[in-house]
């Protein structure tokens, strides 16, 4: 008698449980998909924004390289004007120190290298973004919280992973951890076999729900990181534009001066020297923040992008 009763009871529980679990699976899947869709939209906007910043940084780099050509012209002009032999002090009250500086600028102009604006930081940021392409939905059952298939593990690692799997995944991924897994394992021994599939299905549904919760939380964190990074990049973009305009305006002034200046006129030579010196300083990277060990986002010098947010974690 007890056995048929158990079978009927198990069948009833099985049917009811299956319907309940099916609805839960569907609800969790829809919840995950909706959040994922929003997240992907946000990520796409973020990616485009990073690309636009990178483009502007590249443009600034090109602009600075081009400005070097103007500086070279100015250097040639000053060499032809024999600046080193001129006595500016009489006309313009140039101190001996300033005169030495002028000669130094002439040397610097010849030595300016094209690699003053390192875009490696931004490039690295883009590289991290590139990895996002590898972000596929890791939904296969039987994978550890790091996404490694349990079958690929051996010994203690395999045991821990299996216990964690039984416990609904690692604690970090929203599961019950190894302890819950071990307790579950102990219980399973005593559960009547007829109810076992329903219990496992229910457990799986519960675990799936936890995974969805966890994935959504990961997306929340990642989205918040993208938001902060985007804000920092906006500031960086403002800075890039500021430096870019500064270089453009001073270079234009120097070009205008070179067009109308004569090497015979001391005043002309002096004006060209002033503008060339200022442009050389602008192209130089020694802004007042460059002495810091942890530069963060800066420009006018090496452009370092803040760390890109971590990749999101999909339900495993």
């Amino acid at each position, binding site marked *: 008698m007890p056995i048929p009763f158990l079978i009927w009871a198990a069948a009833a529980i099985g049917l009811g449980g299956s319907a309940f679990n099916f609805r839960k699976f569907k609800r969790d899947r829809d919840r995950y998909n909706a959040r994922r869709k929003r997240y992907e939209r946000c990520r796409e906007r973020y990616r485009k924004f990073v690309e636009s910043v990178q483009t502007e940084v590249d443009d600034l780099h090109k602009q600075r390289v081009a400005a070097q050509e103007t500086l070279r012209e100015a250097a040639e002009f000053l060499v032809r004007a024999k600046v080193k032999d001129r006595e500016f002090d009489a006309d313009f009250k140039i101190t001996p120190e300033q005169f030495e500086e002028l000669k130094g600028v002439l040397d610097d102009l010849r030595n300016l290298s094209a690699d003053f604006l390192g875009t490696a930081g931004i490039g690295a940021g883009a590289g991290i973004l590139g990895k996002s392409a590898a972000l596929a939905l890791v939904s296969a059952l039987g994978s550890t919280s790091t996404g490694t298939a349990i079958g690929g593990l051996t010994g203690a690692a395999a045991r821990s992973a299996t216990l964690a799997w039984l416990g609904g995944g690692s604690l970090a991924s929203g599961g019950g951890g190894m302890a819950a897994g071990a307790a579950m394992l102990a219980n399973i021994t005593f*559960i009547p076999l007829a109810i076992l599939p329903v219990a496992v299905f229910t457990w799986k549904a519960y675990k799936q729900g936890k995974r969805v919760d966890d994935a959504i939380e990961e997306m929340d964190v990642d989205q918040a990181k993208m938001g902060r990074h985007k804000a*920092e990049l*906006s*500031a*960086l973009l403002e800075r890039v534009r500021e430096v870019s*305009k500064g270089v453009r305006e*001073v270079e234009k002034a120097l070009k205008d001066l070179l067009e109308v200046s004569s090497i015979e006129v001391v005043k002309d030579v002096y004006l060209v020297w*002033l503008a060339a010196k*200022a442009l050389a300083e602008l192209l130089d990277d020694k802004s007042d923040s460059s002495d810091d060990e942890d530069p963060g986002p800066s420009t006018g010098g090496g452009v370092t992008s803040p760390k890109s947010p971590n990749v999101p974690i999909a339900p495993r």
Partner: protein
Amino acid sequence: MTTVGSFAAFFGKQGAFKIIEEAVDYLKTREAEATKREYIRAKRDALVTALNHERDFVFAYFPARFAERRESLQQFYDVLHAAVENSNSDQLQVALEGILGIIKDNPLKDLREFRREWEDPNSEFIL
């Protein structure tokens, strides 16, 4: 016959007690693990809040700061081009010094300072 009775008949009395005992143990463990999970979740929530505050600060501060600088720079650019047009060396020097003075002062260093302050638990922010 009740379900518990069925279990007892099927597994024996000892088995039924064992099931209950294991179930209680399991629930206790589960409760403890749930608490740990809540802690992890709370930490994540705090992280999201902190990140959002940082973002809001950066969005509120830097556009205003750069707008102010842009205005000053524009005035110096105007002086610069006037100086070139008039071949006025004094004016040119003033304009170039002004431009360099502003541009070489990188406002993004404030971001670093802000981060340092933000990570210091003793700092207070008045927003």
